């Protein structure tokens, strides 16, 4: 294929740019709740995010990548002219990355996922024809954008009610916190491990039976729980702190739990959002390496996942830190007990979506989860105007991504197409 290596280099550059954007903006939303609840410092949050974003991207990022790469458009239609697909994917990456850059400059809260989905659908309509879009799949992705915040909200509601019943409303909240928080830690480890094992590891080349999966997930859960028990034992409680606010010491115990859920959130975010950057990249690499066979299903090259993970970490380190700090200081209302319920609910939902291969917006899911805690009467004041911002971001981002992608597609086509 002509220009084969040019395409791969371009795809890597655009993909890295996109991954950088994900790391710079999105990670901050995922980690801000943990910093805001005071459970982890900004430095710790950055370290946790770097490790677990990468792990999530690498271990569980395969399914969503597959969807972005080949799930939304019928590649069959481009069989005669594989370069159309390559130009389209390059255009989508560039469009989404540039749109995110513009939007965050202008202060619009837009979603990475929506940008890339809009961009891919946009180029497919113009480049390959309306029938090339797998509308069923795109429809289910759009549905998942409604379902994921609702689901996260319901889980967060249930989790926070259980925290209220078991711990906060009890006669001796501190004693109950020490007793039940390790159980929650087990749940965190178990759920994240289970979904990852079931859905994520295949592409890394590990295949296990269901029983092995459950067993391994339980072991991970127990390990997290043991670490939690040790950390809680080492906590020092100050009875004086309870005079001003009665739950000061209880919240310390939840702080330990929050560290575990922060890890889970970073992992979940990595598993879902890395695909936005590397899905198109993987598509380009796949076509070029197979010599132009668009339908051939080649395995996702591991180096592509690593590139995506690395891009996110670079974005986090160069720019994301500052965003985390801004968010973290703005949301002091989110105590560890509330932050835990919201974060775990969002992380579970996102990991589940990752396992199913659905690209969802982590930020919107987290917003849904926080509203769930609010509905359980747990947060003093939530600004419902944000819901309007979410709808606006859908309405603006999808067409914006699509139009930009069409423009870039036509430009690339004009540039590379043999006269």
């Amino acid at each position, binding site marked *: 294929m002509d220009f084969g290596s040019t395409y791969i280099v371009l795809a890597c550059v655009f993909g890295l740019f996109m991954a950088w954007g994900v790391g710079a903006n999105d990670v901050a*939303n995922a980690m801000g709740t943990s910093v805001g609840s005071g459970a982890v410092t900004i430095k710790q949050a950055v370290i946790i995010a770097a490790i677990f974003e990468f792990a999530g991207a690498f271990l569980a990022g395969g399914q969503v990548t597959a969807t972005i790469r080949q799930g939304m458009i019928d590649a069959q239609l481009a069989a005669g002219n594989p370069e159309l697909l390559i130009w389209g994917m390059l255009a989508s990456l560039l469009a989404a990355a540039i749109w995110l850059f513009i939007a965050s400059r202008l202060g619009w809260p837009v979603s990475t996922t929506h940008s890339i989905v809009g961009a891919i659908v946009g180029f497919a309509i113009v480049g390959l024809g309306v029938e090339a879009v797998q509308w069923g799949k795109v429809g289910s992705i759009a549905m998942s954008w409604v379902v994921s915040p609702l689901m996260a909200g319901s889980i967060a509601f249930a989790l926070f*009610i259980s925290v209220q019943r078991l711990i906060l409303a009890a006669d001796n909240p501190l004693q109950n916190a020490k007793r039940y928080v390790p159980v929650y830690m087990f749940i965190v480890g178990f759920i994240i491990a289970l979904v990852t094992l079931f859905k994520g590891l295949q592409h890394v080349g590990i295949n296990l039976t269901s029983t092995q999966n459950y067993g391994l997930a339980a072991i991970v859960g127990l390990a997290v729980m043991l670490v939690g028990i040790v950390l809680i034992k080492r906590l020092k409680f100050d009875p004086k702190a309870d005079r001003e606010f*009665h*739950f000061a010491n209880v919240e310390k115990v939840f702080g330990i739990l929050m560290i575990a859920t922060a890890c889970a959130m970073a992992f979940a975010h990595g598993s879902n959002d890395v695909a936005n950057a590397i899905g198109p990249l993987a598509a380009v690499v796949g076509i070029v390496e197979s010599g132009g066979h668009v339908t051939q299903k080649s395995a996702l090259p591991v180096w592509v996942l690593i590139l995506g993970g690395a891009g996110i970490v670079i974005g986090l380190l160069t720019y994301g830190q500052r965003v985390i700090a801004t*968010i973290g200081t703005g949301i002091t209302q989110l105590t560890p007990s509330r932050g835990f319920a919201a974060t775990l609910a969002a992380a579970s939902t996102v990991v589940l979506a990752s396992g199913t291969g659905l690209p969802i917006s982590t*930020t919107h899911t987290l917003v849904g989860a*926080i509203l769930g805690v609010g509905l359980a009467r*747990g947060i003093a*004041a939530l600004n419902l105007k944000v819901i309007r911002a979410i709808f606006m971001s859908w309405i603006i981002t999808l067409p914006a991504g699509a139009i930009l992608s069409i423009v870039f597609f036509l430009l690339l086509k004009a540039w590379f197409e043999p006269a």
Partner: protein
Amino acid sequence: MAPSMISSLFGRSPVKPLQNHMHAAHQCVMQLIPFFDAVLAKDWDKVSRLQKEISDLENQADKLKRELRLQLPNSLLMPVSRRDLLEVLAMQDKVANKAKDIAGLITGRKMRFPAAIAGTLKQYIQRSVDASKQACDTIDEFDELVETGFSGKELKIVETMINTLDEIEGDTDNIQIQIRAEIYKLEKELPPIDVIFIYKIIDWIGELADRAQRVGSRLELMLAR
């Protein structure tokens, strides 16, 4: 930098401002004790100084009230209804207002109280201030209520505190009856206009406790949901 959706999701909590307002209102009420000491000692310089202080404190509470009102747009999702919250705030404000009225009237008329009722009067004002203190302590539990989602042990604690507040207000009612009886015995020997205003002050001190109690009952409305 983009304002994050997550950080713009959190509105400013009304809890601390509400507590601050109640503290300001109670600060104002508390001054009534040295104020009455000065009145009974007929130290008019001190009386007018304290009256000014009470009036300043009431103004401060007013300012806090306005600030809190401005930060409660309709689009907020709160664990309590906005209306209930504003009603608690209004009632807290009325506590401070009454204290200011009492101090203002007494200072304006340089009122003298017969020595025979001084003991009961001190006891009466003390109990009324106690009611305000109890209301203030109850409002201080508001953040814990939010933390527990208005349930469990914390709910019981607050309910007990509100009961205590009711009892204190009941005490002031009893003292009011007693002090009225004492004045009734003396009223023929006193200038009639002075008597009218003494009765008025007695009424107002009772009302102060009554308003403090109503802060509690407004809070109780929030619990029952």
